[in-house]
């Protein structure tokens, strides 16, 4: 397995020096292309920010959410971005614990994605709040008349779960970066040397230091694994704890976690393919990596498909008329379009990954990953909106349609995410240099 990793036909195995040079090569003064992409992202962010400012000025009525559908695009997009955040930790932590070597060249970028996705997701509860200045009600301190937050509330669990997830992901990412920052410190001169030096915290690669590093890395992987499972479970309980038909289900936690990994892997593929091409990292991120990611995508697609089917089965099995009506309406009512888009993107399209030919074609993988991204956004839309729109009393049924404000903020969130990723890709090594060297050294020395 080890040899397949850096096996590029017609290319010799890179030396450790090559790894240093080639992986840190993108960290130079950016060209006009980079600024062009930054400008596009900037425009998107401005549009989203303007829409949000307008909503703060005129009130939450600028969004389409109202009774009975009081959770709309903002919460849908929040869940979407939290889901995207899951693959980073999965790739870094779970694959580390099970000693899957193929994570080495993709973990850094996936972890960065995690952090930026949580940063994006974190905006949405604030936007959804309307009166954003009251967000501190969730912070655990006696904010009003000595009353503490209600720790029985899933929304407060959410605050703890996502706050912990962001912090631990950041520590995990930064710990992995420290040795690479030392590489950059030693490579550059002048201001850049000093800047990277500050963040490298004086790292000198002493074996004693490595032993502390390795120990903590193992622990972080060990605690991040249950953490990543808990985060999307807690997010799912925002819904499952309510007695809304279509939400109140015990399968929600595993269903959401599988969906999160599915969408996260798709986003990793969407980002990695252009990044690998733009930075010439073909020797490090090989077809072998994409093949593995594609298999993971296929596997999680099957779990998601199973969950979709099971939801309908449970509605029929319980013989609860409200539950049955809710699911029939989901598939054939007003929102039948989003429902079948979801099924097509998440279940039908990924089935092409059964064929090795598809998995080995980067163009096909890129297209499939976009389909999955779209499908997973629609999945959350279907779960959240169709359930609220069609609860118990026919008199309380209603329809929700997103407004321009919500669409602009949605677009802005993508641009905000890509903006951070672009900055990252030009200022930090997108592949873990130290880990790549570890693998290369063992291959050069004939596999220890």
């Amino acid at each position, binding site marked *: 397995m080890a040899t397949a990793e850096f096996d590029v036909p017609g290319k010799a195995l890179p*030396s*450790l*020096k090559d790894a*240093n040079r080639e992986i840190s090569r993108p960290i130079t003064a950016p060209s006009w292309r980079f600024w062009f992409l930054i400008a596009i992202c900037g425009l998107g962010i401005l549009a989203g920010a303007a829409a949000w400012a307008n909503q703060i000025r005129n009130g939450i009525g600028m969004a389409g959410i109202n009774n009975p559908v009081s959770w709309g695009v903002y919460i849908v997009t929040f869940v979407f971005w939290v889901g995207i955040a899951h693959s980073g930790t999965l790739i870094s932590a779970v694959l580390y614990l099970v000693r899957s070597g193929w994570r080495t060249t993709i973990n850094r970028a996936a972890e960065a994605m995690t952090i930026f996705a949580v940063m994006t997701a974190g905006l949405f509860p604030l936007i959804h709040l309307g009166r954003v200045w009251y967000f501190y009600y969730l912070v655990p301190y*006696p904010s009003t008349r*000595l*009353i*503490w937050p*209600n*720790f*029985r*509330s899933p929304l*407060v*669990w959410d605050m*703890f*779960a996502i*706050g*912990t997830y962001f*912090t*631990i992901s950041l*520590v*995990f990412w930064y*710990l992995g970066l420290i*040795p690479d920052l*030392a*590489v950059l*410190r*030693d490579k550059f001169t002048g201001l850049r040397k000093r800047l990277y030096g500050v963040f490298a*915290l*004086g*790292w*000198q*690669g*002493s*074996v*004693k*230091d*490595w*032993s*502390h*590093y*390795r*120990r*903590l890395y193992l*622990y*972080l992987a060990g*605690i*991040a694994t*249950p*953490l990543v499972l*808990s985060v999307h479970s*807690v997010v799912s309980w925002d819904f499952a704890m309510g007695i809304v038909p279509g939400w109140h289900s015990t399968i929600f936690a595993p269903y959401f976690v599988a969906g999160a990994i599915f969408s996260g892997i798709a986003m990793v593929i969407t980002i990695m393919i252009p990044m690998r091409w733009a930075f010439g990292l073909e020797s490090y991120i090989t077809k072998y990596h994409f093949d593995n990611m594609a298999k993971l995508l296929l596997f999680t697609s099957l779990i998601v498909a199973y969950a979709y089917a099971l939801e309908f089965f449970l509605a029929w099995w319980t013989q609860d008329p409200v539950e049955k009506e809710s699911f029939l309406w989901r598939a054939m009512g007003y929102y039948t379009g989003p429902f079948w888009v979801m099924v097509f993107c998440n279940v039908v399209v990924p089935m092409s990954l059964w064929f090795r030919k598809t998995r080995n074609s980067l163009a096909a993988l890129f297209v499939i990953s976009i389909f999955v991204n779209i499908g997973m956004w629609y999945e959350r839309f279907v779960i959240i909106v169709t359930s609220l729109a069609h609860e118990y009393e026919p008199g309380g049924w209603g329809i929700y349609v997103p407004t321009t404000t919500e669409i602009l903020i949605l677009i802005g969130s993508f641009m905000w995410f890509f903006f951070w990723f672009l900055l990252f890709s030009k200022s930090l090594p997108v592949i873990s240099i*130290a*880990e790549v*060297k*570890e693998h290369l*050294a*063992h291959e050069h*020395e004939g596999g*220890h």
Partner: protein
Amino acid sequence: MSGIVAQYETLGATRAAIERLREAGHEDLEVFSPFPAPELEEAMGIVSSPVRRWALIGGITGFLTATALTALTSIAYPLITQGKPILSWPAFFVIMFEMTILFTGLFGFAGVLFHTHRSRRRISAAYRETFSVDRFGVYVVDAGGRKRDLEALLRDAGAVEVEEVTA
């Protein structure tokens, strides 16, 4: 105090050098590596890191903090919500779980910072920038009066460069 730093190009040679130095009675060693190398830790006789104690203490602190936070605030202002008891342990467990993990990670990180910084001044005179590229370094902190023998030993183990270092 003056020591000797030798540079090596392979993991195998570095390991051999460490083993020979320890056999010759030089236990006060610092070794540099461009990547995590469990083999070298083993050769140096490093069994585990004190970071594990930091992480354990962090985890326990986090768990107790969350238990106190959820239980004491509920007792201090006993208001029944959602029809659940004042001490709703299943609901509070989510908070306890998250805070255990949060504190484990943060304490562990503080431990890494503490232990890596403590040794920094002692070793920085021997650090060479090649150690972050592709070379390993073996630093005998106090060469004592046997510099010649030491140098011969280090070169014999495959050193590509040997220098004296005054700390």
